[in-house]
């Protein structure tokens, strides 16, 4: 911050050296000051007289050996040219703007600069914030609260799960074994159990404890027990029946077995 300020200050100092020649801010400023001595409305100014005044000023400065910046000399040369244009009859051979046009433009520039000077004075004369009128002394900051919510769709969820399970397809994975009952296991169990019940009994009641609640385990156990009961029926150990489609499957120990 302070570095920037000193930077600006340096630039301003540098500017002052270039611009502030003998108190004037450049040739146009000098011309404007000179024109004021004519004591007429800027719109009726005599540019010819002004050019003469300026050339005289530069001459004086030279006599006093005042070092004038280049732009003052450029302006002097241009005014000398303008003066000759204004004094001599127009040369029909020559192109370009007439002396009057050039003079009118210079007068316009002076008037415009004077107007802007006037405007800056009026602007700075206005009531100003922090000097003539005031803002709130104890502003209350607006507290910014940012709330972040997260969202996901059911599809995201399913795709996420599918993604994981798809990976399982090509990676050894042992977790599932907990929920899987093989036919061999079911067969072992049922061989021991079928003897106890002489009546028709729902196959579902043969499911081992702890396997009838979790759907995955229930599915696996049901499947393996069904397969096992088919196996037992084939071996002639049990009878198997179902009253209608989707009705409970019932099994019974074969009396003759």
């Amino acid at each position, binding site marked *: 911050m302070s570095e920037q300020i000193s930077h600006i200050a340096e630039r301003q100092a540098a500017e002052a050296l270039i611009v502030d020649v003998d108190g004037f801010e450049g040739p146009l400023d000098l011309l404007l000051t000179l024109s004021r001595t004519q004591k007429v409305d800027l719109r009726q100014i005599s540019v010819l007289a002004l050019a003469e005044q300026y050339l005289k000023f530069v001459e004086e400065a030279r006599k006093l050996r005042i070092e004038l910046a280049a732009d003052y000399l450029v302006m002097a040369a241009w005014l000398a040219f303008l003066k000759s244009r204004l004094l001599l009859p127009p040369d029909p051979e020559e192109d370009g703007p007439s002396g009057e046009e050039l003079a009118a433009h210079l007068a316009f520039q002076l008037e415009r600069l004077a107007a802007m000077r006037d405007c800056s004075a009026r602007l700075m004369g206005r009531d100003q914030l922090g000097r003539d009128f*005031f803002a709130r*002394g104890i502003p209350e900051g607006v*507290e*910014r609260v*940012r709330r972040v*919510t*997260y969202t*996901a769709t059911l599809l995201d969820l399913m795709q996420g799960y599918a993604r994981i399970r798809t990976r399982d397809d*090509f990676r050894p994975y042992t977790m599932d074994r907990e929920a899987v009952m093989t036919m061999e296991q079911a067969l072992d169990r049922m061989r021991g159990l079928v003897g106890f019940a002489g009546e028709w009994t729902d196959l579902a009641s043969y499911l081992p404890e702890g396997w009838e609640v979790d759907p995955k385990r229930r599915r696996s156990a049901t499947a393996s027990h069904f397969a096992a009961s088919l196996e037992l029926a084939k071996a002639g150990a049990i009878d198997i029946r179902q009253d209608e489609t989707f009705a409970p499957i019932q099994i019974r120990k074969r009396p003759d077995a």
Partner: protein
Amino acid sequence: MPDDAKENMGETVAESLFEAPPEAEQERMVEAILFASAEPVSIADMNARMPHGADASVAVQHLQKRYEGRGVAVVKVGEAWAIRTAPDLGFLMRKETVETRKLSRAAIETLAIVSYHQPVTRAEIEEIRGVSVSRGTVDQLLELEWIRFGRRRMTPGRPVTFVVTQGFLDHFGLESARDLPGLRELRAAGLLDNRPPPGEGTDEAEDEDEDQTDMFVSDDEEEEDDE
């Protein structure tokens, strides 16, 4: 206008040398002082600033009455006075912005595992996902109140389990977690068939990365992943 105002000001000042300004004028002055001061102002301080003969204590009480029921109130702070926002409008001084972000892939997968396998321990989630689950991911799901702690597992170490919440079911429009489509349905829906070719080992590495750094993936990335 500014010129006029200046003239008026001159008049007011000149007048005030001879007599105290009218009450309404004193009230205006107190109003301006309280408004512009950076701190609460005492009666003595106000009197010192106001033209001779003015009585700030009367003026401030009139002002307080005038502001009754308005958006700001004239309040006494210790021995000094200040203008403050009416207490019921405090909410205007807060600007709440709500930002909706898509849940990261890591969080979605963790949530999916909890919903399909609940109750499930962190170790089990990690085993299923094949990558470690960052605390941030679990914390985020807990904070969203989509998962909560279930019973401890009766295995060595008695690890906590995670289950999904009613909030989860509400958000995803489910009656119960059992309504989630099973693997077969996922396959039927084509969700299981687009498996990445085996040997595309970058998948896992990416996952790790995600967990550790940016929890939230932009939508396009997400889409890319889904292809």
